[in-house]
């Protein structure tokens, strides 16, 4: 799609808006982009913004020392009303981000939005998904409760299996700083910086290449932005309401050497793979998913037959992941370490 940068002169474009530079938002985009399935990425961005703001607040109360982490969270839950709500909002926003990004991925895959010339857009999105999982994992571990201790034990066991690539995830990487403290550093600086960088690339590619919506009807980007803004406000209102009504729990301080919990729900499909394949499942399942996602733009363009196969494989993988999550949620907790 060709994107015209020439500002139009739509209704409502006032001189004040021109002075503020807002007329630059008045470029045409396909009207189809105003449907919900084309706004999932923008809504994910809204949840990421909430996560960033709430995360900044939480850093004022959180102590990343292994022995103080759990106590500091307990402190903010029981003593600081606003911080307690901010924590709930942070966790609910993370869950919303996973749901929205999953739906966004499925929608783009279904409409084959990864096809030429948007391969880079797809790959940057896959990278963002991986970063979101990394942020989800590090965020879980920071709590220092039983679920966090078990998640960390799984990660270090996986890191040991990954060889040299896993060294940063082990205590042996450096004796000068605890692994939890380093993961906190990753959660609040390394991963968000990487996310912002890749997100900027993702957004720039969308601006440069346009969305993959079909149809000749056009609307203004400013109009689209208004709809996205409205939905984002409703989304934040919903997240706030859920945070008020269903605050997130905290388990007891973690005891190493026990496996009695299940992971944060976006990781349940990996947990299910561990139930079936042992510790190898922790590496195999993500490798299969992200390997497939990385290959999608390549296999799809080889032939029409391969394109159909790619689409079918994607649907099967999605159904497998959803089934695995359901199975892991219903099955009793199992031990995996040492399997």
């Amino acid at each position, binding site marked *: 799609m060709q994107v015209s940068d020439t500002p139009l002169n739509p*209704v409502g474009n006032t001189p004040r808006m021109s002075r503020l530079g807002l007329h630059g938002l008045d470029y045409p985009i396909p009207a189809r982009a105003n449907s919900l399935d084309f706004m999932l990425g923008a809504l994910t961005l809204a949840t990421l913004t909430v996560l960033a703001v709430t995360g900044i607040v939480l850093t004022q109360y959180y102590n990343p020392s292994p022995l103080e982490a759990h*106590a500091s969270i307990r402190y903010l839950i029981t003593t*600081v009303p606003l911080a307690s709500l901010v924590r709930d909002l942070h966790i609910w926003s993370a869950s919303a981000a996973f749901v929205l990004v999953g739906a966004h991925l499925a929608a783009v895959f279904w409409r084959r939005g990864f096809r030429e010339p948007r391969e880079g857009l797809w790959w940057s999105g896959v990278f963002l998904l991986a970063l979101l999982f990394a942020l989800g994992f590090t965020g879980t571990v920071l709590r220092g409760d039983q679920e966090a201790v078990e998640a960390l034990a799984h990660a270090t066991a996986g890191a040991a299996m990954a060889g040299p690539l896993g060294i940063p995830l082990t205590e042996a990487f450096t004796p000068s700083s605890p692994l939890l403290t380093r993961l906190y550093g990753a959660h609040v600086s390394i991963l968000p910086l990487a996310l912002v960088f890749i997100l900027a690339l993702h957004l720039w590619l969308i601006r440069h290449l346009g969305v993959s919506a079909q149809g000749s009807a056009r609307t203004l980007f400013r109009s689209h932005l208004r709809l996205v803004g409205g939905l984002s406000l409703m989304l934040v209102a919903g997240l706030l309401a859920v945070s008020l009504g269903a605050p997130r729990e905290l388990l007891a301080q973690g005891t190493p050497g026990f496996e009695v919990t299940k992971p944060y729900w976006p990781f349940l499909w990996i947990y299910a793979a561990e139930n079936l394949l042992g510790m190898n499942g922790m590496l195999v399942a993500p490798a299969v998913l992200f390997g497939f996602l990385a290959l999608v733009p390549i296999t799809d363009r080889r032939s029409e037959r391969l394109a159909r196969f790619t689409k079918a494989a994607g649907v099967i993988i999605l159904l497998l992941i959803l089934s695995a999550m359901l199975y892991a949620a219903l099955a009793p907790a199992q031990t995996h370490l040492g399997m």
Partner: protein
Amino acid sequence: MPAVTHRTMPFILALLVLSMGPTALAGRMPHPEGTLTLADRRLVAGREIVIGGEKFGRGGQLILELVSLNGRVRLGTVTTDSSGGFHRAFDVPADLAAGSYRLVAIAGDGDEVASLRIEVLAATSSTPPAGAHEDTDAHAADHAHAPADSGLDHGTEPTGEPLDLDRARSPLITGSLLALIGLLVVGGVFLLRKPHTL
């Protein structure tokens, strides 16, 4: 006073070099840096720990201290054996605050020659941060568990059950948030008007 000539200058330079030599050598050859070993890096205040060391200078005296942001606590001194090692029990002070510390070995001239990161646990379960509600902390402490290898009496094994915490709530903040939710909904509805189509 004789003038410094081009003949005396080389001697002066040679003297300077010779006098600075030992200092430079000392800078290049610090104390042998040894290694400290502990059976468990989580210590419990009031309990005894056994600290081992190796690869230090032979027959030297070392001071062992616990260092934190709040200051330094001396555990005691040891004298290394003929192989530069030692193995000795120390008492962790009972009033030592829980938290992160560095166990450091200091040579006779004050140089730090080994360091190990450790955690100190309070004598009874985990310690909540200062400023927490007393009643809530007591309640939470009932549910909290000390690490399995800390040597503490754990009570029960860990479970996946959430803590029953008394959440801090403020009517002002809750009311403000409800108002904010209302505003966001109104703002959202306002923005969700039918878009222009070209």
